[in-house]
């Protein structure tokens, strides 16, 4: 019954050799056809189609002039099962009637949430002690730069930001 390895050695002329080659080729084709979509699926999130979109932070009255307030926007690309993680916080500084600064919550060092202290007009990070001035520039600690800022615009009495992406050193908000 058992022919041994010699029996299936691929020799081009024989029927066995052809079947062996055919088997290899069919399986290689199948592996490619399975592998390409699998890898494409896993790497799918890399395609950055519209990773950001304009979204409202609410009416301008929420942000008194000269003050910095915590605001929240809903991730424009949310899905139903995102839960609370769809709500993204950010700091809004209203410099005067028209000028704003919208800072990402994430410290420029390693992404922890920075906190605003209105009395000393500083942002402090609880993780590694990064500190920023009220205009977002770096004051002290390990951060390599100032706070990340969202692009903003004032439209229909509301403050809009381009949100939807976690700001990092290689990809700002």
């Amino acid at each position, binding site marked *: 019954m058992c022919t041994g390895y010699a029996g299936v050695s691929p020799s081009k002329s024989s029927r066995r050799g052809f079947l062996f080659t055919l088997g290899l080729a069919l399986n290689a084709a199948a592996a490619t056809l399975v592998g390409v979509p699998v890898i494409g699926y*896993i*790497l799918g*999130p*890399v395609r*950055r189609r519209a*990773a*950001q979109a304009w979204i409202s932070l609410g009416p301008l009255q929420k942000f008194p002039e000269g003050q910095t307030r*915590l605001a*929240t926007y809903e*991730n424009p*690309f*949310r*899905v139903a*099962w*995102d*839960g*609370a*993680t*769809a*709500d*993204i*916080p950010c700091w809004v500084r209203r410099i005067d009637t028209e000028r704003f600064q919208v800072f990402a*919550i*994430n410290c420029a*060092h*390693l*992404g*922890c*949430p*920075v*906190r605003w*202290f209105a*009395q*000393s*007009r*500083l942002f*402090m990070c*609880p*993780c*590694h*002690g990064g*500190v920023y*001035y*009220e205009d977002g520039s770096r*004051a*002290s*600690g*390990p*951060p*390599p730069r100032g706070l990340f800022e969202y692009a903003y615009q004032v439209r229909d009495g509301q403050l809009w930001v381009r949100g*939807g*992406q*976690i700001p*990092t*050193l*290689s*990809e700002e908000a």
Partner: protein
Amino acid sequence: MFREWGRAIGHWFEERTGLAGIIAIPMAHRVPRSTASWAYVFGSATLILFVMQIATGICLALVYVPSPDQAYQSLEYLNYHAALGWYLRAVHFWGSNAMVLVMTLHMIQVFLWGAHKHPRELTWVAGVFLFLCTLGMAFTGQIMRWDQDAYWGLGIGASITSRIPYAGPALVHVLLGGPIIAARTLSRFFTLHVFVVPGLLIGLVGLHLWLVLWLGINEWPMPGRLVDRATYRKRYEEEVAKDGVAFFPDAARKDMVGMGLIILAVLLCAALFGPNGPNGVPNPTLIDTAPKPDFFFLALYALFALVPPWTEEAIILIGPVVAICLLLAVPFFAGTGEKHWRRRPIAVLGVLLIVLTVVTLATLGLVVPWSPVMDAWSSLPTPTKFVKGRTPLELQGALVLQNKQCRNCHALAGQGGQRGPALDDVATRQTTDQLIRQVLQGGGNMPAYGKNLTPAEVTALVGFLETLHPPNQRPARTAMEPATPER
């Protein structure tokens, strides 16, 4: 009669499966008598912990919902509603701690006993990957505990990943399953934690065990008995033939005791201390949180706070690659020669250095002296000795110190942040002018308060700071100033 029936049934199965014969080969294989030692129990203990993690993990997955809107609730349900859910969560948590710890002990032991040397290089390499996969399980497992630490831990992971040149942004998206931490992120980490990494671990464990069987357990090293590529195998086989014992039960007895004790210790910890968390609802808008990793990554967390900023990029990017490559390369550049730790001072000192560094950093990671104490300004009292008999201006300065969050970084009477120096005797170190300059311009890792304080506040604050010196020690002054009478 029962014994005969039993034997007959056993025979029936053996005839049809041949399994007993297969199992008998690894069980009965002969190993050097010297390996039946308490020092050799950590490998099997790690294995049994892994088996326990699989068992408890499967149980947890029966209830856990890997979806950000319900993961937290399902953990709370496990803690408070599901029968024994709290206990299985506790066993899984303490088991993970024990697995990392015991695996580290195993790694240190085999290294000090020279087990990585010829011909067991690849056993070591497989072990290094097992170690990395286990740390991967620890990190992804921490994410499964979908709480504030998990959410912001992912932020830290994304920030570190983003620093990789060129591929950084793409890798962040692959890691998070999108541009931001959301539903797909948790699903990804669940898949990694439950399917991908455990699959890798099972494969690697198989390879690791096969190599141990194929090459034999490392014999107890003797000073002066050198490993030589040409003669080692032959000498090992001679030793086993001359003075070998069956792995089971002769060498395995102590392993069995070790496995039992460690599992019981984990169960005891689980019963006494219970599960860990979930701590804090994973709502990103609740920002009053100080994220902290589990103990496996505390040392890294501390490192990021302590290295000079200009070296950080290099340490984050090159550090792990160098460390892993060094670990993998150890058996190839130190694969022969002395095996006994007494003749390998560099190896012993290297282990000591690494252990001390990691333990010191992890301890600092618990204390976090570099972090501002976020509520120090609003919660700590000003010690009475610093306000008694002070002028109104100085008292006003004490208020400024409190209200402007100075205490978040500066301690008074041992209370407050440790980021900056304690202020108890700051007046003995800095003259009035220096104090004013420091407050206004900052420097030495202190923000400049020039724009954030009114001149009146600065005057009051410096007035108070000048009083901060021991009663028998004068405040600092320049040689130009006349010696004022003590205040």
